[in-house]
């Protein structure tokens, strides 16, 4: 019963994601190319946000999301460049290496909390960026980075297609990969929300010592959360590298990635599955508008959303709406009780 309540909305959402390109194409024609890439950005942001939220559920403020993202991007590029394997192999490889790295980071930072954890993860990202930049240029491109082959090369058939449809098909390929990744991440998120992991994560977040006394193993749980959180980010970074066609140290390990990953769930609603997805949809739209008007400082939108969310809506959109609904129900129940008492 419980399972169906989750499966139905997820299946409906997956179906929507699946048919969306066709709908866009039918509805918007040539303009659908740019709509589709906007939607792809939103889906990518949702993956970033939701996976960050999974780790945040153990109470850790991680600033290392860019590290996993960049690692995925570099792994797939290096695989494509140095190994004679199909291109797609780099994507699960990126996810796997990112997860291994996350487990390593999780183990060494186990005892760090709060600000110390945040600073350590941020420093880790910077070190990793420098590491990839310092690798021999012939191997990993140095500061200038490397080019990456695209995953999709749709053939152009003048008889049946128009020019723009090439771009559409290419975008559609990446879009579907992103969408699949989002469904996977939703699965991970729901698993940690519906299984006993939920109580374990919440207990650790509330009070790690007490959680330990109650039989939760904080160390094991935190490392697990790290791995679950990083695997989809690593794959996302890998797909993104193919999508844009290049990888550079500054871009792959950009602080902006970490900012996206943490602002979105806070805006949408921390510790929920719906919140980060909802937040991603709204923020991707805001970002697109800002990017068109502001070249260098478009991140200011994210900063403002973060500050305003913390000040006025610390539980995010989902948390605030749920709180209002709960209060309404409570008020209605109280009113019903009062009228009963009056009748008697």
């Amino acid at each position, binding site marked *: 019963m419980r399972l169906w309540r989750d499966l139905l909305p997820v299946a409906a959402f997956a179906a929507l994601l699946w048919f969306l390109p066709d709908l866009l194409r039918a509805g918007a024609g040539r303009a659908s190319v740019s709509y589709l890439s906007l939607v792809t950005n939103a889906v990518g942001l949702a993956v970033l946000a939701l996976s960050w939220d999974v780790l945040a559920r153990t109470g850790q403020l991680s600033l290392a999301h860019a590290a996993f993202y960049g690692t995925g991007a570099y792994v797939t590029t290096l695989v494509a460049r140095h190994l004679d394997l199909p291109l797609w192999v780099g994507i699960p490889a990126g996810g796997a290496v990112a997860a291994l790295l996350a487990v390593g980071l999780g183990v060494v930072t186990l005892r760090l909390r709060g600000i110390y954890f945040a600073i350590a993860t941020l420093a880790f990202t910077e*070190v990793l960026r420098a590491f990839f*930049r*310092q690798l021999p240029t012939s191997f990993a491109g140095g500061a200038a980075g490397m080019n990456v082959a695209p995953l999709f090369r749709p053939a152009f058939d003048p008889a049946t297609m128009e020019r723009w449809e090439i771009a559409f098909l290419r975008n559609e390929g990446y879009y579907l990969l992103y969408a699949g990744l989002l469904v996977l991440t939703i699965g991970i998120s729901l698993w940690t929300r519906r299984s006993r992991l939920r109580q374990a994560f919440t207990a650790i977040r509330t009070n790690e010592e007490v959680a330990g006394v109650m039989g939760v193993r904080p160390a094991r749980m935190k490392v697990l959360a790290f791995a679950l959180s990083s695997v989809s980010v690593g794959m996302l970074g890998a797909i993104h590298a193919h999508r844009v066609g290049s990888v550079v140290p500054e871009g792959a390990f950009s602080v902006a990635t970490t900012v996206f990953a*943490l602002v979105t769930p806070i805006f949408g609603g921390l510790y929920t599955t719906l919140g980060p997805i909802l937040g991603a949809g709204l923020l991707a739209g805001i970002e697109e508008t800002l990017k068109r008007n502001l070249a*260098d*400082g478009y991140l200011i939108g994210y*900063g*403002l959303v*973060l500050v305003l969310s*913390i000040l006025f809506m610390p539980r995010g959109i989902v948390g605030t709406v749920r709180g209002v609904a709960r209060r309404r129900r409570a008020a209605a129940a109280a009113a019903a009780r009062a009228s009963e008492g009056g009748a008697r």
Partner: protein
Amino acid sequence: MDLSLIVQAVVSGVLSSGLYALVSVGLALAIGVIGIVNFAHGEFFMVGAFLTYTLFVAFGIDPVVAVLFVAPALFLLGAVLYRTTIQHVLEAPELNQMLLTFGIGIVLQNLALLIWGGDPVSIAGIAYRSVGFKILGVSVGLVQLVSFAVSLALVGGLYFALSRSRLGRAMRAVAQNRVGASLVGLEVNRVYLVAFALSALLAGIGGVMIAVIQSPTPTIGLAFTLKAFSIVVLAGLGNIRGILAASLVVALSESLVATLVPNGGTLSNAVFFAIIFLALIWRSRRTA
């Protein structure tokens, strides 16, 4: 390895430690008194630098005079930010406090990018900028020397003020016991406001110096937040006295790496972050 090169690296490391101490002592003040870890602290430093630049370019005001404008401006900025934002999350979970200051940092940095663009700005054409001495084969820049002296004087002044002045004693009282301090009649919120504004002011004065010494970009703030934080951690969280020694360690290691390691100029930041990372982990293993 040439010995004079090492001596040179040590001297320039010592000189830049003053600036680090000045910026870090502000962060330590915010942490120690208010208990807020301010991720936007380095942005105060950056704002100070760019205000100095603008005052110079637009009005031809010399940085030495610009301090008189920049310091009050940053005090005001800190006070306004405290009243409008920080004050409202004092009781919130630590995660929210960190995220709030992180958000403020993002806003300040991108605001600066919008105003000044992403390229480094330089205060060219000040005569004293290139003045230097050569003592026993070691060259010392006048600006570096003066900024070192001023930083030390300011940090020393802060120690003195904290231990002697009425406000300083109030700050220490509030830091030790918030409830007790308010019971004996201290206005806790006002003390917090002054402490936060003062911390922004100190970082801003550091910014004036960096505007003259280097050619900053609007993105220098985050690196300085991290550096200041690691100095504060090295000194012991909230311990203002250890800051000078910790700054010396950090500045020396940075300048030695930049000089002695080939390609060290671009690597010194990475080495620095590696040190922070390892120090945090080492510290957590030792104390647990």
